[in-house]
Structures are given as C-alpha cells and as structure tokens.
C-alpha cells in the first residue's frame, strides 16, 4: 500500500465522515468537496486521468456549486433544518447498525476473493487517454451516450416545469 493511496483514501474518508457530523450545510458541502478531491487523487493513481479531471470539473465544480447556490438561497434563517427532537426513536442506532451490516457484507465480498483471481494487470499504452475514452464512448457505447443526452434533456425540462412556472 502506497503512501499516496493512504493519503487519498484518508481524504475521502475524512470528507465522508465530515458530512455525517457537520451541522452547518456549508461545512457539509466543504466536507463532500474534500471527499471528491480524494477520489480524484485515487483516479489519478488508477491511471484514469480523464476521470480525475471530470470528477473535479463536474462534481466538485458544477454539482457542489449547485448545492451551494441552493443553500445560500434557502437556508438564510438561523434555525437548523433538522428538528431537535426525534420523531423516530432509535433512528441513529438503527441507521448506524444497518450501515455497519452493509459494510460487513461488502467487506466480506471484497476480501474473500477466490484464489487466482486477476489482479491489476499491465496496461495498454494509451489507457486513460482522452482519445481512447472518446473513441470508446462514441463507437462501442453509442446507444448509452444517446440515452444520456435524452436523460439530460428530461432533467432540464423537469426542472423548468417544477420550479420555473411560478410567477414570483
């Protein structure tokens, strides 16, 4: 295990934990940004440079800025969004134990791999390059690409229908 892997994994874990414990919405967004930066470092370590750049531009740049806009617009009042009292008792204990069970199952699946399973292989020279990525996206995976364009259009139309029609 390399020092860089430990550092990037640590950043990702600290970001995820920060989302769980932070009270202020802006602090939560910063924690998630830390998580995304750690994941971008991990993608670089997996020689997927294009994915690292996309992670930073689309996720850290666009999606989290969208979150920040909504937080800045909506949570200007001082009282917290979450009420103090729990309507659902034992929610915290139940949530953490269910999450722990999921973690246990996934860890068992991940760690108990069969003997002789392939490990990280030698790479073709242009793995991770934008050229190969674009070629794969626009030839082999053309149908998902077109469906994706349709999904994005549906999202835009849906957002406009949901919030755009109020004459405020």
């Amino acid at each position, binding site marked *: *295990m*390399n020092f860089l*892997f430990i550092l990037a994994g640590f950043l990702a*874990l600290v970001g*995820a934990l920060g*989302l*769980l414990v932070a009270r202020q*919405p802006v602090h*939560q967004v910063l924690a*998630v940004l830390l*998580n995304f930066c750690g*994941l971008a470092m*991990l993608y670089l*370590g*997996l*020689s*997927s440079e294009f*994915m690292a750049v*996309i992670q930073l531009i*689309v*996720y850290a740049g*666009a*999606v989290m800025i*969208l*979150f920040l806009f*909504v937080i800045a617009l*909506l*949570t200007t009042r001082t009282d*917290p*969004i*979450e*009420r103090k009292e*729990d309507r659902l008792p034992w929610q915290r204990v*139940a*949530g*953490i134990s269910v999450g*722990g069970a999921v*973690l246990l199952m*996934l860890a068992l*699946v*991940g760690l108990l791999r069969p003997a002789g399973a*392939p*490990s*990280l*292989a030698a790479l*073709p020279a242009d*793995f991770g390059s934008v050229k190969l*990525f674009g070629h*794969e*996206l626009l030839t*082999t*995976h053309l149908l998902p*690409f077109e469906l*994706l364009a349709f999904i*994005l259009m549906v*999202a835009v139309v*849906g*957002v406009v229908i*949901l*919030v755009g029609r109020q004459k405020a």
Partner: protein
Amino acid sequence: MPLASLNEYIALAAILFSLGGIGVLIRRSPLTVLMAVELMWNAANLLFVSFARMHGNMDGNVMAFLVITVAAAEVAIGLALIVLLFRKKDHADVDDLHELKN
C-alpha cells in the same frame, strides 16, 4: 505502477458506500440526504474505475462517466424538489414530509 492492490480499492469503496448509506439513514435534512446519496454514487464510481484498471480496457471508465452524468441530472431534479419543499413548508425536516401518507 498501481498505488495499491485491487482489494484495498474495493474495501475503500465499501467503506465510502456504507458511510453514505449511514448518512442517508441518520441525517434528517433533505440537502444532507442528497449529498450522502452522492457519496454512494461516488463509491460505485470508484469500483467502476478500479475494475476498468484491472481489466485494462476503458469500458469501466465510460460507465463511470455515464454514472456521473446521471448523478448530475439527479441532483438537478432533487434540488428543484428541495427548493419547492422549502417554499411550501417552514420546516423541511424529512420526518415532517408525510403528504403522501394516507
């Protein structure tokens, strides 16, 4: 050279996915729940990229790219719903949303 073995990447993705799931379950602000769902998408993406690196072809990277785009669309719709929610109610705690319950 890869930084770590495949199992370590899988374990890290499992931990991140579980932390996102715990966030969905224990936090009651809709914004936080949406961000925790983003963490879960990202854990799945880390697995896609790791397995693409293992097999040495780009299919996993393309799939992770598609996941990122779908997640962006999901965030747009989800934030629009949250904006409507904040306009309609003065408390947006997810426990208070029971209009669909009859």
